[in-house]
Every structure is written in structure tokens, then in C-alpha cells.
């Protein structure tokens, strides 16, 4: 294909060295390859991939000798290009599977050409007239006034039902009953006042919970709290005694024996 180790001119070597200096300036091996390919001064479609592989490998060699840290992907590319080079130089081995050296080289050339094309396209794109720089939109946009019109819907049926609801409200159960899972302190107090007369001995507070309130957890909690609050109230006014053996142990109450105690 091409004479190996061709007479790289001094200028080319110098150019290669200059490249090495700003290796960080390349966006990866493909970018570097594209830059190297330009030294061939030919149409990208006629580029010698073999020569390019040489250029790249010598670049890597030089970078190594200059002890420049190269990212792993540069080295991967170097290894692959070395492989490609051998494929291109050696006569094809019929026993070997996979793509031929030519196919691989063609694809690399395609990649380079495509990258170059995209570079040119992006330059063309950015070279276009741009909004806000070369051409302009309306400076005083009047905008669209969004008029939100809300219409309310109500039917005669709504109206009548609403009225019926109000007028027949009294026929329904009292509102307080709505909160059926809540025992108010007033209710508990009332109940306790009636019961306390019979509590001569220490009795567990929990046994004072109203009937039907002991099982449902929500009701039980409310009833316990209300009943407890009621007993505190009763104790405060001197009607009962309270005792608790230990933290969290059951609370007991009994009727205060008054002056006798």
C-alpha cells in the first residue's frame, strides 16, 4: 500500500512534536487522528490509513519518551492501530475470522471523514445569522393577554337540593354525633360523677371506660384520655384519690373518704 517508514520530513517530525506539547488539547484519539491526517495534505477520502497509523504510533512513542501521561484511550487506540497496521501489511490469512484490514481501515477513514464533516457543519451552523445577533424578534412584544373566564355552573337541581339540605337539616341527628369516635371530657366527667359514688375501693381506671368504647382502638384511646382527664378534674375538686404503683402501671381511683380519711 505505502512504503513503510517513509521519508518523514524534518518538518513533519517537528510538527509531530509540536502536537505532543498540547496533547491535552485533543478531544480524544479520534480528534488527534483527524489532526494528524491533515499533515497528509490529501482529501480525507484518499487518506492513507496505514500512514496515519504510523503517524499516530510515532506520536505515542514520542509522548512516552517525553514522559507525557497519556490517557488510557490513547493507548488503546495505539494498540488497535498497531493491530490494524499488521493486518494491512500482512497478506490476509484465510483461516482468520473477522473483518479484513481494509474493512477496518475503511471504517476508520469513514469515522474521520464524518467527524470532519460534523466539524465543518458546526462551523457553518455557527456562521449563520443568529437570532438576537444578526436578526431580531419584536422588541416590544405585546403578548397575549390571557383572559381567564371562569363560568360557574349550577343547576336548578343543585339549588333545590341545597335548599332541601338546609331546610331538613334539623331532621337529622345532631351534629355532635358526627364525631362518634371522640369522647369529650365533658361526657367523661358526667359519666364519672355518676359512677364515682360506687367506687369505695381502688378500681382500675380502665374499667370506667363507657360500654362500647373498649374495643375499637380509636374510640378506646379517646375514651381513656377523656376519662383520665375527668379523673384529674375530680381529684382536683377533692372527690377522688388517684394512685399509680409505677410508671406505666395501671392507674387506680377510689372515692375520697373525705374528712374521715
Amino acid at each position, binding site marked *: 500500500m505505502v512504503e513503510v517508514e517513509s521519508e518523514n520530513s524534518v518538518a513533519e517530525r517537528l510538527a509531530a512534536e509540536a502536537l505532543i506539547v498540547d496533547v491535552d488539547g485533543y478531544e480524544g484519539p479520534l480528534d488527534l487522528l483527524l489532526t494528524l491526517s491533515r499533515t497528509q495534505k490529501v482529501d480525507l477520502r484518499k487518506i492513507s490509513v496505514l500512514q496515519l497509523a504510523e503517524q499516530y504510533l510515532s506520536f505515542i512513542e514520542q509522548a512516552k519518551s517525553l514522559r507525557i501521561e497519556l490517557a488510557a484511550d490513547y493507548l488503546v487506540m495505539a494498540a488497535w492501530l498497531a493491530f490494524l497496521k499488521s493486518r494491512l501489511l500482512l497478506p490476509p490469512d484465510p483461516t482468520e475470522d473477522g473483518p479484513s484490514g481494509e474493512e477496518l481501515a475503511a471504517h476508520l477513514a469513514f469515522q474521520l471523514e464524518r467527524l470532519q464533516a460534523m466539524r465543518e457543519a458546526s462551523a457553518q451552523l455557527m456562521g449563520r445569522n443568529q437570532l438576537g445577533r444578526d436578526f431580531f424578534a419584536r422588541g416590544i412584544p*405585546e403578548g397575549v393577554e*390571557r383572559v381567564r373566564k371562569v363560568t360557574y355552573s*349550577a343547576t336548578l337541581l343543585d*339549588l333545590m*337540593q341545597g*335548599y*332541601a*339540605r338546609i331546610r331538613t337539616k334539623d331532621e337529622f341527628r345532631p351534629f355532635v354525633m358526627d364525631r362518634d369516635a371522640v369522647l369529650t371530657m365533658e361526657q367523661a366527667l358526667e359519666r364519672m360523677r355518676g359512677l364515682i359514688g360506687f367506687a369505695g375501693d381502688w378500681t382500675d381506671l380502665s374499667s370506667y371506660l363507657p360500654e362500647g368504647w373498649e374495643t375499637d382502638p380509636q374510640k378506646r384511646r379517646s375514651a381513656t384520655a377523656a376519662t383520665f382527664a375527668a379523673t384529674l378534674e375530680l381529684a382536683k375538686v377533692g372527690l377522688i384519690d388517684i394512685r399509680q404503683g409505677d410508671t406505666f402501671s395501671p392507674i387506680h381511683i377510689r372515692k375520697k373518704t373525705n374528712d374521715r380519711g
Partner: protein
Amino acid sequence: MTEVEESLFEAPPMGEQERMVEAILFATAEPVTVKELQGRMPHGCDAAEALVHLRKRYEGRGVNVVRVGDAWAMRTAGDLGFLMQKETVETRKLSRAAVETLAIIAYHQPVTRAEIEEIRGVAVSRGTVDLLIELEWIRFGRRRMTPGRPVTFVVTQMFLDHFGLETARDLPGLKELRAAGLLENRPPPGEMPGLGEGDEEDEATEGQSELFED
């Protein structure tokens, strides 16, 4: 003097100058004075003359060149203002409080706010009344000749039209409502309303609402 100076430069043809003024007026965020136009256009241009041409060109168009103080701007023609509005119509269901208030006014008109509150059992919010007035379904009636001379509310013709009534007297009475099955929906005894279905302002009647809705 200036004439000599100007002649040194080839001023663009008037058609071009007109284009320039057009572009500047279009793109600038505020009205532009002739002086500023002149300053922005190439040497030798006559902004004032270009403006005259441009103004004529836009006469009767959808956009006009107008004078704003001592500056110039382009504005959409006054008769096309309606295009600059985008109406979105949103239909909302009238709140229960509003429906009930409206119903009370319809059945009891003329009725004072205090009376409405007494019937509903909760305070009537200002917003509810305002909304109904805004919808033109209720209006103020005569003041009641009682202490404090409170205003009364009555329903409007708009209300009657909307609900397809000849007069407010055509509204069915309680008995008829019941006969029509509207009151038959008694609450099942055990059913209790849940928590947290907060209705606008009236918690007092909460719980009964579902009873009527099917």
C-alpha cells in the same frame, strides 16, 4: 455645511432607509426618537423622511407606526386589540356554600344576610355573596325597615334565565321537593361522615352533603 459633508457619503436610497427605520422600530424595546434613529442609521440618511414613508406604508395595516411623546413606535392597530386576548373558559362547580346561599335568597327573597345566616346556621362569607353578585345572579334589594336598616338580597332576571324559571315563585316548595324524591334520601343511621373532607367555610353542615348527591 452639513450638506457638503453629507454629499461626501452616498446615502442609501430612501427605500433602504425606510427598511432600516422599519427594522429598528420593530426590534427596539422602547419607542425611538428621530434623533436616535438618525444616530443609528448610516451617515446621510434622513430618518424623518423615511418615517413619513413608513408611516404611510403602514396606514390601515394590522400594525401602525404611532407617535409616542416625541418618539416613534409600532403598535398593533386599535381595532385588532381583541386578537391579543386569549380567552380560556373554565367551568367550575359552584361551591356548596354558594349554592345554599343562592337557594336561600331565591326561596326567601328579599332576605338579609342575618336571615341567611340564621337559616344556614353558619356565617355567610363575603366572598360567597360577592361571587353571586358578580355572576349577576343576586343583587341588592330594598333595605329592610327594621333597626339597622339592613340590605336585602334578591335574585336577578339573569338568575331566572339561567335556571329556566319564569319567576322565583316557580321554585318548588319543600313538599314538592319531597314528592319529587329530592328529600327521600335519608341518611342511613349508621353512616358517619369521614374526617378531613373540609368544605370551604361551613363545617357545620359537613357530612350531610353526600346525602343529597348521587
